[in-house]
């Protein structure tokens, strides 16, 4: 290259190295702007759908535009980091579920949750236990006695990754005393496990009502129990786990989190808006149509809930042998 060109080249390259030094973050006034909801999964899943329904209605109460940002990867780590590293100005919210807590004990390199500030819970969906329709089990005890008499014949589907389904299923099997007799088959996600259950390749799996509904209608899956305090109003024929002798609190929850260090006034504004959203008719009808229960727990109650859940996860993960994670 000619001398002049070479010089310009060098100058540009040097510029490229100096420029980053000028970068700095700009603060913004909270009432203006966009609120982003970070979903740590690719679009189309349950968390994503719920987040979108929520964001849509939430914008009415927070008086700003809302958008959903999908940041999948590394279990839920990448999405979590997105919120942890965001500006603590209340504009970046995370829609996280049990997977967040479970990831602490299942992932080899979990994100430190101290970087998050919980705001409120807005959804709690009890899990159900579903079996392949053509199997003769009519109750949990049928299934348990089958497993006891036929070791390693009961094919139990678990979905791994940041598997709360994994943790709870195993915990349940232990409580029922058939952990050693169960044959656990791991799947990449709830969808794969669902398909395998519907086809009879596995015998039992767990998920929330909304997800199993089409399969129940198509007579592919029978739900043996639901982990709820009382029977579900829409399904009075399905007994609870408690009735059948297992007192386990087991459900999928969704809550809003934001970055640590966000000023308390802003968190209060967010909390109030979340509460209003959970009482909003439009939101309630959207969630109900899909059988996603809406439940609001404010900041204090949410923090308590998380603490308890966390204890449970740690216990189960240690018992199951997932924690500490093997390298």
């Amino acid at each position, binding site marked *: 290259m000619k001398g002049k*060109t070479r010089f310009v*080249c060098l100058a*540009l*390259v040097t*510029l*490229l190295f100096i*420029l*980053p030094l000028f970068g700095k973050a700009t603060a913004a006034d909270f009432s203006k702007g966009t609120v982003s909801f970070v979903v740590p999964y690719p679009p189309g899943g349950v968390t994503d759908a719920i987040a979108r329904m929520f964001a849509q209605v939430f914008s009415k109460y927070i008086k700003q535009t809302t958008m959903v940002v999908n940041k999948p990867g590394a279990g839920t780590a990448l999405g979590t980091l997105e919120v942890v590293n965001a500006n603590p100005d209340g504009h970046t919210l995370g829609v996280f579920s049990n997977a967040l807590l479970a990831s602490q004990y299942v992932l080899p390199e979990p994100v430190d949750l101290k970087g998050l500030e919980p705001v409120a819970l807005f959804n709690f969906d009890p899990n159900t236990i579903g079996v392949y329709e053509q199997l003769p089990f009519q109750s949990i005890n049928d299934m348990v006695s089958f497993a006891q008499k036929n070791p390693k014949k009961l094919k139990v589907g678990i979905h791994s990754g940041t598997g709360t389904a994994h943790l709870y299923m195993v915990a349940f099997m232990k409580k029922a005393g058939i952990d050693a007799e169960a044959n656990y088959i791991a799947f990449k996600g709830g969808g794969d496990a669902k398909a395998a259950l519907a086809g009879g390749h596995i015998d039992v799996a767990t998920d929330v009502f909304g997800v199993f509904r089409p399969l129940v209608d198509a007579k592919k899956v029978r739900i043996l129990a639901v982990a709820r305090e009382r029977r579900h109003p829409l399904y009075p024929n399905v007994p609870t786990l408690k009735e059948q002798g297992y007192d386990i609190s087991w459900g999928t929850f969704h809550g809003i989190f934001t970055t640590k260090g966000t000023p308390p006034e802003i968190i209060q504004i967010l909390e109030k808006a979340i509460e209003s959203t959970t009482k909003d008719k439009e939101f309630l009808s959207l969630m109900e149509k899909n059988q996603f229960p809406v439940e609001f727990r404010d900041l204090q109650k949410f923090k308590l809930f998380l603490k308890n859940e966390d204890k449970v996860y740690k216990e189960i993960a240690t018992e199951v042998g997932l924690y500490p994670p*093997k390298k």
Partner: protein
Amino acid sequence: MNDLVGAGVFFAIGVIGLLYSYHITRGTISNPGAGFLPFYLSLILVLLSLLLFFKSFKFQRGGNNERIKIATRWKRLISAFVGLLLYACVIQRVGFVISSFLILILLLRFVEERSWRLTLLLSLVFPCVFYFFSVTYLQIPLPKGILPF
């Protein structure tokens, strides 16, 4: 010559693969663990690379093995490599618009030797248009970097 380099690359990849999968539980063929596939596959790659290595010697006498063609414009190629790698490293800090502006200038003017007029035109228009559309309509949060908007 070509094949020797290829064999060498795959040998190196295979060895790295072996080293970094050694500590993961392998299990057995009837009950494979997470480390089973990576380890044995890396082993296979190492063996295949050795096979290629020996094959290349068989052919060298026949003159079938070509030498690597070094491109005439290799200096520009290297600048493109380096420029692009730099782009990937600084885009988060410097921002999409400025980084793209610079890389386009590099590619259009210095690698491809187009006129300054065309270069500046394209380098300014494309990044700005793409940035605008992606932030307003597509909701892709491109890195802002040091720009205020």
